[in-house]
């Protein structure tokens, strides 16, 4: 090779290398290109099948803003996509990731293509000879039906299972509250307070109020129980039995908590005005009159009225009889 030719080749090589370099530099993705490319991989979460790069929605614009911010900070494409995946899961990718179960989506078409090509090749190499018509053709036809029926049966089964699956996913609200039917054993007092406060106009709220007040009452927390019993006692929506139960508790708390005899008796009387046969109201009124006002005669009369109730349980009868005997003997209340 002459020197001149060597020089020409050298210069030519340099020109080619320079051109390649220029092309590489010119075509290397800018930050804007990267943001656009990443945005085109991410599905807009508030749109139907649109990428955040192509959606005009404010949420998509905000997500593009985040991507641009991360690119400017030097984040890699995968790190940026992974950040969104950590928040939204794979549901935010327009193309499913080629890993895990979604790898099947990428592989399945290739497998189907390969299988189809295999079957065609096999058929070409093993052409089927037309079989002579025989008397057993009818039987063979029926036999051929079997796999078809199996296929149809399997398809029907799959559809039923898929339908069930879909129904489960699109099922009714799982957390809807039902004030009347909800099992309240595991529900805290705070939750009941919140439910009551949020449903003041619901006629069924009196039931929950009474249940909550009863919890406070049983725990000896009269201060918390009082307002709920009072609301039930004054509620137009409360049933008679709810109102009577609330008035009886209010009466007893007035006596037991504050030693207010007149207030307690007044509340028991209100309960008896609604339900004249309330043995509990009568019995507790007798207790208050006996213990708080030393009104022995009135108390004895009320105890006797309670005992006249044929439906009074035996264990209660024993208790009332003991109280009546004590009152009649002039004993002080214990």
């Amino acid at each position: 090779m002459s020197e001149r030719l060597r020089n020409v080749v050298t210069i030519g090589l340099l020109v080619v290398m320079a051109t390649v370099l220029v092309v590489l530099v010119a075509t290397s993705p800018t930050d804007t290109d990267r943001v656009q490319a990443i945005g085109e991989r991410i599905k807009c979460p508030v749109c139907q099948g649109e990428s955040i790069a192509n959606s005009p929605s404010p949420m998509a614009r905000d997500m593009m803003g985040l991507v641009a911010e991360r690119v400017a900070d030097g984040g890699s494409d995968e790190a940026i996509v992974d950040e969104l995946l950590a928040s939204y899961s794979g549901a935010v990718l327009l193309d499913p990731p080629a890993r895990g179960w979604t790898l099947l989506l990428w592989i399945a078409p290739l497998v189907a293509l390969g299988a189809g090509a295999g079957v065609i090749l096999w058929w070409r190499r093993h052409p089927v000879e037309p079989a002579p018509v025989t008397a057993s053709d009818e039987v063979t036809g029926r036999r051929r039906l079997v796999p078809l029926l199996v296929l149809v049966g399997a398809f029907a089964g799959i559809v039923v299972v898929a339908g069930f699956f879909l129904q489960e996913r699109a099922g009714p609200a799982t957390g809807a509250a039902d004030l009347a039917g909800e099992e309240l054993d595991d529900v805290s007092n705070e939750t009941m307070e919140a439910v009551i406060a949020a449903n003041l106009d619901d006629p069924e709220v009196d039931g929950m109020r009474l249940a909550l007040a009863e919890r406070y009452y049983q725990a000896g927390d009269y201060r918390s129980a009082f307002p709920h019993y009072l609301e039930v006692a004054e509620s137009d929506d409360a049933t008679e039995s709810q109102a009577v139960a609330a008035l009886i508790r209010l009466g007893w708390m007035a006596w037991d908590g504050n030693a207010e005899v007149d207030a307690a008796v007044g509340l028991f009387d209100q309960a008896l005005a609604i339900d004249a046969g309330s043995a509990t109201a009568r019995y507790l009124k007798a207790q208050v009159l006996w213990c708080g006002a030393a009104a022995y005669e009135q108390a004895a009369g009320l105890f006797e009225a309670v005992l006249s109730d044929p439906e009074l349980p035996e264990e209660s009868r024993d208790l009332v009889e003991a109280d009546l005997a004590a009152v009649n003997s002039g004993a002080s209340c214990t």
Partner: protein
Amino acid sequence: MNRGIRWVGYGIALAAVVFAVVLASRFGTDPGLVDSPLLGQPAPMFELPPLEGGETISLGDLEGEIVVVNFFASWCLQCRNEHADLTSTADAFADQGVTLVQIAYQESPPASLQYLEVAGRSPSALYLADPGSRTAIAYGVFGIPETFFIDEEGTVVGKIIGESDALTLGATIDAIKRGESPGQNVTGDTQQAPDG
């Protein structure tokens, strides 16, 4: 041999049908209903300004508390429906180490403030703006209302998609206080921004 290849054909057809049905079962399924990948993970941190402006408030400020993060907007009907329940829950649990954080989603602070003025507030709750939707994106919000529950350790342990009520909210908090992880609960539809 013919019979063998026929069965192979049937097998391939059956596999194709199964594949198609599995794919078809996903049509119409709201992607927002997938289980949040945040469940069981440390809650994404945020540092956001109150709607009224002023000093930012971060999730770190609420360390050791159960935090209920609710994304809302005045244009969201379900948010309006659940607002009284969120407020009463925040009030009821105020002295129980539970804080409600309501974050405005795709809405200007003045619009959110105007809405809260009418709908009411809990004195114990925090009402924050989310410039650029960074926190909504970090929590993977698809639509609103969405409500996240963060336990005392700072882990996301529950999520309600759709309208919630006081009983659902309270029962979820009760479960967290018992050390349980309530997980995801879909109570209804969510809404997108009107121009979204």
